[in-house]
């Protein structure tokens, strides 16, 4: 067997057989599901069971606050000072105080409580008060609220992309955003996780001194490439397993959540609007070329990983321990972090010049391009970006190889950028 493939296999097998890999592979989809599911769950469920007392000195706000199964309101007529001192003893979350006020100049409202209230609670109380005062003002000026309400309009813009072939396709910026975000973050995570794995692998070989034995059998570059490729395969394996497992888990969930349960959810008024949104988003998925998204994801994952993995390997070769590596980490990972921060900028204008250039420059293109692809990218841009990424990783592999071949055998030297440059310049 060819030596590089021997190295690839060793790197691959030792990692795939590790318990941590197996655990991460199975826990990943579950955690990911939890991350998506739990916030919704909590948002829908934990708000409940709050209780407020209301003192209405104005006499205008009677029956404005209506208890439901989440929040209960109790109107009390005690003096404010007594109510305040009772508040801490009673099992009440807060005290809403409505003073006597002028309709034109509503002031002096207060919410007393033992602890800070959540923003959503505050805004819901404020909303209730504002709406009621508005309607009071309307009726004071002789207008009927119902008439005003009947003028209100609510429009959802359907976005439809026209293609050159003359077809029309329903699209959804929402779906594109979600897919772009997921793909970009996955690439970011993968490059970080597997790049760091590369680096640690090199440090381990270097610090355990096995490297000299291996180097009497293979060239430094072969060893580096074997490691980089082997770990890329670990990443791909994990990715494929995650997709399969996530598919399996969501199948299971849809079986458990019987149609009745779904209908019940839909009956809940709050849910129905979200369900509607999901439905339009899902139908809009048809408008996004998922084959293109997935295949470019694979390309940018591998390309981005090679680009950074090689640099991580070079950092590893210059370090005797993980701690040593820290000083080189930031400059190398800075473009990745900048890409992630720039995502919102790209979202505002997926076809603008910032988006364009960042998706062409190889150091940022894997993350930025994955954000842009769901919004539709001209083929020439995609091809140029891919071509640049290939050039980019060939370039970093070359640089990394030159640093690696010297660094891997250096022990106990305090390495800085100047020394790295010197290693790079060292002739064969």
């Amino acid at each position: 067997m060819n030596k590089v493939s021997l190295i690839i296999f060793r790197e691959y097998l030792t990692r795939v057989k590790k318990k941590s890999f197996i655990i991460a592979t199975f826990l990943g989809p579950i955690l990911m599901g939890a991350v998506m599911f739990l916030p919704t769950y909590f948002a829908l469920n934990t708000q409940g069971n709050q209780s407020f007392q209301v003192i209405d000195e104005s006499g205008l706000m009677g029956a404005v606050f209506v208890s439901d199964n989440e929040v209960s309101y109790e109107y009390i007529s005690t003096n404010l000072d007594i109510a305040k001192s009772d508040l801490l003893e009673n099992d009440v979350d807060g005290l809403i105080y409505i003073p006597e006020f002028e309709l034109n100049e509503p002031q002096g409202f207060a919410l007393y409580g033992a602890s800070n209230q959540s923003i959503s609670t505050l805004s819901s109380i404020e909303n209730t008060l504002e709406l009621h005062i508005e309607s009071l003002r309307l009726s004071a000026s002789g207008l009927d609220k119902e008439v005003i309400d009947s003028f209100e309009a609510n429009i959802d813009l359907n976005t439809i992309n026209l293609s050159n072939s003359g077809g029309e396709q329903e699209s959804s910026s929402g779906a594109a955003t979600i897919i772009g975000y997921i793909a970009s973050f996955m690439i970011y995570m993968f490059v970080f996780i597997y790049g760091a794995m590369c680096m640690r692998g090199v440090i381990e070989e270097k610090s355990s001194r096995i490297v000299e034995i291996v180097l009497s059998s293979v060239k430094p570059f072969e060893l580096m490439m074997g490691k980089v490729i082997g770990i890329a395969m670990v990443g791909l394996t994990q990715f494929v397993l995650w997709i399969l497992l996530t598919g399996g888990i969501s199948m299971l969930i849809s079986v458990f959540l019987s149609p009745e349960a779904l209908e019940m959810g839909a009956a809940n008024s709050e849910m129905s609007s979200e369900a509607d949104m999901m439905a339009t988003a899902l139908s809009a998925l048809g408008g996004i070329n998922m084959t293109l998204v997935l295949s470019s994801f694979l390309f940018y994952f591998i390309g981005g990983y090679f680009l950074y993995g090689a640099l991580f390997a070079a950092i590893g070769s210059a370090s005797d321990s993980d701690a040593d590596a820290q000083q080189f980490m930031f400059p190398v990972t800075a473009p990745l972090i900048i890409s992630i921060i720039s995502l919102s900028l790209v979202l505002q204008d997926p076809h603008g010049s910032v988006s364009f250039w960042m998706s062409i420059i190889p150091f940022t293109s894997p993350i930025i391009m994955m954000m842009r692809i769901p919004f539709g990218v001209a083929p020439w841009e995609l091809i140029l970006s891919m071509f640049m990424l290939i050039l980019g990783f060939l370039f970093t592999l070359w640089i990394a190889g030159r640093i690696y071949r010297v660094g891997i055998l250096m022990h106990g030297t305090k390495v800085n950028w100047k020394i790295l440059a010197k290693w790079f310049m060292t002739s064969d």
Partner: protein
Amino acid sequence: MKVSKSIETTKNKILDLIKIDHISKAYSGHQALSDISLTIPDKSIFGLLGPNGAGKTTLIRIITKIIQQDQGKVFLNEEEISYDLVRKIGYLPEERGLYKKMKVGEQLIYLSQLKGLSRTEAVKRIKMWLEKLDLKSWWNKNVEDLSKGMAQKVQFIATVVHEPKLLILDEPFSGFDPVNADLIKNEILELRDKGATIIFSTHRMESVEELCDNIALINQSKKILDGSVKQIKEEHKQGQYIIDYMGTLPIKESFDVLNQTDLEGDLKRAHIKFHEASKPNDLIAQLIGSVQLFAFSEKIPTINEIFISKVSPSHE
């Protein structure tokens, strides 16, 4: 071309397997090797001696092409050494290391496959070696569970398993207890008898005399001497003799008595330096009239003594 070359080389009585030609190497501001030239004969054991930091490991790393020399060339079988040639060498680095989380058997198979053995061949040979070095039951153990000595044995196996024609061992005995050092020594001798050439470096001299056919002494980046062990010892004799005698030694200008000790009874032992570069019989002739001689032997310097005498002046 190649044919005529090999005919030419077989004409020489002793083949030189390795020729090191004016090698120099400097690390930033520090001269590691200056102008070293050496030849290493085929099918012999060559000792590379020198104190710590003399440049032994640097020279070995240049031969194995792990680092690049600044000047000079290394020839293996009259061919300038290349990566392809290096991969056939068995090399035991000074800094020992193995993949800690890998199992002994698996790791040895991997390293042998990197040296070009097929998997089945590797398994067969590794089993043989593990048995030979009392490691048979460790096939499935992680390397991190091994003692230092055992890990060293595993490394030794990794070095020799592909039966290289040339073995380079950097400090092969460091870290071994005397029993295991002996075990490894015998394996090295056996490999030589099977036709391998072995270069090993050491700063410990005990092993040298038993093992080496030829040595080179390096100190502070320079070669101080080289040649066969026998010849070097011959060259460094200083006309010293040890005699056991009864009676009183005569006082003569032709020799000095370096020290004198009493043995049992009237028997004494003296260490004599004979100034005349003549034969031992002349010394005996000068002594024989005054004392009763019981034993007479020429004091041959040990490599250790030569080493110290050559190295210490420059250490001062």
